[in-house]
């Protein structure tokens, strides 16, 4: 049966979502996501020509405030849950490649 989303697509999406999946998970998700996408496709029964997309229910836009510095968390609170820290820095594996 032709799946709506196949295993190679699942791997692509997993990469975008920064999720490492096992081969078993990839297969399982391909089946489940296909079934869900099949159901979701019923929206195509509706003619939405000329209908505006509604991302947000409130007529509230561009909520600004004055650009004045206010009290913020501070370094200690901000780093309190850090898996690895180095003083005021969150520590992570090297990002830049060796030249």
């Amino acid at each position: 049966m032709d799946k709506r989303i196949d295993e190679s697509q699942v791997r692509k999406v997993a990469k975008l979502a920064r999720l490492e999946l096992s081969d078993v998970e990839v297969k399982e998700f391909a089946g489940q996501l296909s079934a869900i996408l099949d159901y979701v496709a019923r929206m195509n029964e509706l003619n939405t020509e000329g209908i505006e997309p509604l991302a947000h229910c409130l007529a509230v836009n561009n909520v600004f405030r004055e650009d004045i510095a206010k009290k913020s968390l501070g370094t200690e609170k901000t780093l309190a849950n850090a898996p690895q820290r180095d003083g005021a820095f969150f520590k992570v594996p090297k990002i830049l490649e060796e030249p």
Partner: protein
Amino acid sequence: MDWPSAKQLRDKIKTGEVGSVTATREVFARIAKAEPIVGAYISTFEEAALDKASEVDRRIAKGESVGQLAGVPIAIKDNMCTTFGTTTCASKILENFQAPYNATAVAKLLAADAVIVGKTNLDEFAMGSSTENSGLKRTANPWDTKRVPGGSSGGSTAAVAAGLCYAALGSDTGGSIRQPASLCGVVGLKPTYGRVSRYGLVAYGSSLDQIGPVTQTVEDCALLMSVIAGYDPADSTSIDEQTAPVGDYLAKLDEPVKELRIGIVPSFNAGADEQVRNAVDEAIKAYGNSGATVLEVDMPHLDYAIAAYYVIATAEASSNLARYDGVHYGHRTQEPNDYIEVYTKSRAEGFGKEVKRRVMLGTYALSSGYYDAYYLKALKVRNLIRGDFVRAFESCDCIMMPVSPTTAFKIGEKIDDPLKMYLSDIYTIAANLAGIPAISVPCGFDNGGLPIGLQILSPAFGEEKLLRIARMYEKQTDWHKKRPLITDE
């Protein structure tokens, strides 16, 4: 066993008739007995709760003024940030996370002198309809412990139903307050989008999420709303006082709505189990007997609500959950080979299956080539659904329908079929898409003694009238006074 409502307890505490310490001790005694079976709480704060309770009692004895929830033991769903204890979202990825600030709704409860009992269990990151997706523990329905309490606020509703707190906060993105409230026989309200601040509510679907009360009675619901509703500058999606002032939810609560017009959608209700349908029909008949007019309203797009929701909510979730990357907080994988593996492995290890599924679905729906067909299409369908409500409310004051197509299902019954689980939300989801308020009130029990809820939906920011409508029915019935047997054992 019996216990008073939150407001009744508050009133007794304020007059000194009952001490908050006594009430809090009783709650923890019930917790000690019931929790091994019900499992509503992820964490509890007995010592801090008793400290707060005695502080409140002391201030009252001195004649000092106290807040609206003075001394009342209240529970908080564990997806709301608290500076005390942990905020886990029932996920391994946040199992030890200690939030650096209190959610605004929590801060308001504290300012009202509530006693915080603990943080309740939920489906991981609020994604689910049974609380079975919790990455940390199982919660059972107090009415039948082989059955689910519903979700995602199953811990909160189970706790209120079993007297393990006097009221609780839940959150609702697709029905997560109303559905478990209905399955647990308690009152649950999803406020209008923007009515209650989302600051400190861990985001799942930002255009859909709302914090709301889970209570024993409609009056308690009004009381809690009085405390938590209102504009918050820290939440740019909260509505300002000019556009929609917070009403006085308690003042006229007992005043019936004259010439009430109730809209129903019979074809839509047909999808519910027979006993659920009958109980809901009987409840609507009771309104009719009191003088309300019941009329059919045409809402042709409700059938597409689930499809639109599972694109929009998952798309928003894929963005909101990108922050759980093992870098700043939460679980980090032990030995990443490079920085990318910090993300991919931490998330793989920390997230449960349902969360991964929804993140994947949302990522797919937003990805290049699929964005128009799925996400944009869903947003247009959302507009059509909102249009259905706008039109319907031209001819009626509220719409009534079931909350859940079934009563509480067995643990494990739907967990292997994601789509089957999603269809539990069929009656609740549209209110989130349209941003309107909706409440679940107990309206009976099935032959197995399982609770059934009646759902009442109203126009945006119509909570004052909605609560009065709900109160009209509650006054005539005593479903809400029944207690699950587990509280007797």
